[in-house]
């Protein structure tokens, strides 16, 4: 049973889901599915309006690989220094039976001194990790007094568009007021009580995925899912030292968003319907996984699914450079950002907007006002610049 889970374990698609599932698999083609990790799942909410992204995520297409193959590699490298720093810090927090973590849980959350039991789920073979996690969590939830406190390297799962995503929270802590808490270890600094809001938000979104997965697990096991707290324990280095500090982060909002996105994913068939039957995003990898699909062909296939490019994509989507290039070819106002695009009312193209401003183009029905505004703005600019 668990072993079957291991190979990209996908339950046999049923009924209505079937066609959708098959379409999605066809969309991905021979390329092996990119398993969703917590970050990927959290990122589903980054730009829900983008059909292209929704379809690629739904089909488990490796957007990064696609972007490379298209010649628009994503701009997200990670520095070896940052990676080392991250690992060193996590090791420090977990060293000596999570001594540091226990200190923080005791100080910040009043964890009783007696609560020190530590289970390293990874002590069992990788293939047993999920099953072992289930067993341990089940025992804890059933309220065995010796249920234990810290579960290191647990392995949770979540069904994403018919695929099982495997999720690895840093630590699950129990016995904080009888509830499970997700512990998220991050190496960005908390300085005088504050951290980079974007970084915290990302951590919160990711932790929300773990909370949801753990709640789902409890539900499957017939326990009260609310035994999992919506407060996650965020552990970061404090100020400029290596010393970790714990902060509680309320992820209820992120949970709500996550639920919305997961329900959306089930409605992919609407998007699929809009695609030609035979279209596929297959990279046609050769035996050593190198993509062989003609680039132009792949690009066309992708253009078949409309993107909704916004500059924010540059920090959230592997495909951003490809879509930005597309937007440039089309001379779309989206290039200038959501706000500008919104300000221009219905006007979508640069040429159109400027035409209206110069008066060289007559406003279409419904464009009268934006035309008036633009002409006025153009008049003022001319007046001030000449």
């Amino acid at each position: 049973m668990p072993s079957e889970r291991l190979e990209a374990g996908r339950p046999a698609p049923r009924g209505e889901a079937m066609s959708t599932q098959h379409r999605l698999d066809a969309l991905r083609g021979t390329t092996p599915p990119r398993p969703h990790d917590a970050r990927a799942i959290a990122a589903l909410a980054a730009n829900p309006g983008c059909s292209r992204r929704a379809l690629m995520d739904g089909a488990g297409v490796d957007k990064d690989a696609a972007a490379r193959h298209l010649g628009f590699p994503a701009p997200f490298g990670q520095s070896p220094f940052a990676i080392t720093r991250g690992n060193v810090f996590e090791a420090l927090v977990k060293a000596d039976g999570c001594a540091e973590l226990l200190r923080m849980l005791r100080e910040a959350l009043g964890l009783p001194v007696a609560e020190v039991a530590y289970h390293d789920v990874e002590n069992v073979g990788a293939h047993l990790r999920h099953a072992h996690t289930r067993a341990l969590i089940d025992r804890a939830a059933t309220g065995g007094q010796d249920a234990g406190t810290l579960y290191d390297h647990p392995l949770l799962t979540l069904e994403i568009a018919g695929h099982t995503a495997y999720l690895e929270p840093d630590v699950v802590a129990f016995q904080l007021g009888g509830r499970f808490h997700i512990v998220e270890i991050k190496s960005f600094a908390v300085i005088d009580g504050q951290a980079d809001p974007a970084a915290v938000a990302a951590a919160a979104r990711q932790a929300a995925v773990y909370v949801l997965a753990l709640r789902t697990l409890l539900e499957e096991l017939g326990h009260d899912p609310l035994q999992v707290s919506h407060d996650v324990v965020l552990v970061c280095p404090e100020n400029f030292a290596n010393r970790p500090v714990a902060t509680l982060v309320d992820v209820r909002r992120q949970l709500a968003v996550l639920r919305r996105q997961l329900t959306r994913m089930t409605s992919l068939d609407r998007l699929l319907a809009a695609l030609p039957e035979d279209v596929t995003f297959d990279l046609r990898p050769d035996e050593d996984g190198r993509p062989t699909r003609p680039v132009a062909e792949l690009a066309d296939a992708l253009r078949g699914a409309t993107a909704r490019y916004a500059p924010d994509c540059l920090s959230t989507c592997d495909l951003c450079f490809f879509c930005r290039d597309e937007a440039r070819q089309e001379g779309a106002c989206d290039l200038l950002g959501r706000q500008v695009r919104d300000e221009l009312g219905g006007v979508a193209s640069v040429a159109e907007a400027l035409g209206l401003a110069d008066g060289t183009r007559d406003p279409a029905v419904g464009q009268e006002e934006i035309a008036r505004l633009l002409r006025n703005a153009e008049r003022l600019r001319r007046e001030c610049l000449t």
Partner: protein
Amino acid sequence: MSLLTSLARLRALEEGIAQPVATVRHCHLSARPMVFVPLKLSGEAAAPLAAMLGTERERPRLLVVTQPRNRDLRFAWAAELAGVLLPYIEGFLADTETVERRNADPYERAMDAPQLIVPNQGGVAFTRLLGRSTRFRRPDGPYPVPESVPVLGRWLTYFGERAAYPGSALMLAATEELGRHWASGQSGLEDANLAALLAWITTGPSEEAEDPLVWPPAGPATDPGFDAEVLAPAIESGKPERVAEALRTQLEPTWRLMWQAIDLLAGLPEGASAAQRWEQDRGSFSGMATHLAEGAPPQARRDGAVAAAARLARMERAQAAYDVQRAYDDPLVMAEYRLTGEAFAGEVVETDPDNTEGEGRSRKLRPLVVIKTDDPVRLPPGATLGTPQRRAQGAELVSAGEGLVTVKITKGMGRGRTAAPGAVPEVGERVCYTSLTDDFQGSPQLPEAEATPWTHGGPPQDYVPDDEDAQEEWS
């Protein structure tokens, strides 16, 4: 961002070159700015890696931490930095003027002040963090540092805070200032890339600008590729000069860009009110220096209740003043308000310079001016108006319609029975009036910090920089 700026961006995109969104420079530009390009170690909060800085474009100083994990080297670096910055800063303290104040003692104000220019907001934030991580240090005790380090920390903290103060020019971020004066054909997010923004302004968009190999990031973060393929091996090799060389390659391009940015800004005539804001900067700078000289403790980690409220009031006032001054100094900025109907400009078509109101002693001169304008006026009758052409005057909107606006001058006409020559605009003169005026009444007293009320946690225990501040180890 207003439609006016959006239009400029669209135009830039179409013409492939940035468009002006200001006709004058809205920040003071020092004759001897200190250009400061810091780099930090990826993955760390504020671990300095290197900095290129100096006041002369031909003679940049390169400071490098050749073994970033070694905290002693980091403090040595901080001391080196202090060795460059402190003399520069203190150099402005000698030459001062005495300023008389109403119901307060006169004080000494520096004739000129230092100006730090960093590439981007990241540079400002890093400066602030650098200040935070050094200002509590002690030259004695368990983790002693050179005496100059805590002093540097307090100055960097000060500059970092001034950078957040509307209209201050003590510390500028190049991308911010350029973006205030030119609209590129890319999004605001992309404007944060100095190379890209400058390309738009000078030669037009360039793919290279985003290629870290051609234009290394302007910091403080380094290019991950560079970290992996060049820096890490260099550090491993344990050869300081090799690390320094590697970092030089990352800093020099940005150094050149910084001076290009300064040249561009210098090319614009300075706005009328910039000098006034710079005067406040000089006053603030002198205040900080005195503070330091009197041996006051380092800036607290965070504002107390009263300090926060006081700062907020100052900043809100500064912001409002800054917005008004920019509009009054620059027709292109004023145009934004004309577009939204909060201002209008046009030609005077009729005047009644001798119009009066009231009788006998209370009889006052209230000249009327009729202006013909193409602007959409969205101001109600009775609205108080000001005008860039006669800043001392105040006016009131009488009526508006059919492109004609009647305005009554209500302030600054003096006592006389007839208007002084030039006080009332002549027929045919182009004038601009706006509801945007900067007559703020001062903000009311705040309680003393030690009188903080119970609603805000009561009196704080007064702040003593404790050992922890001085000893938190630098990982």
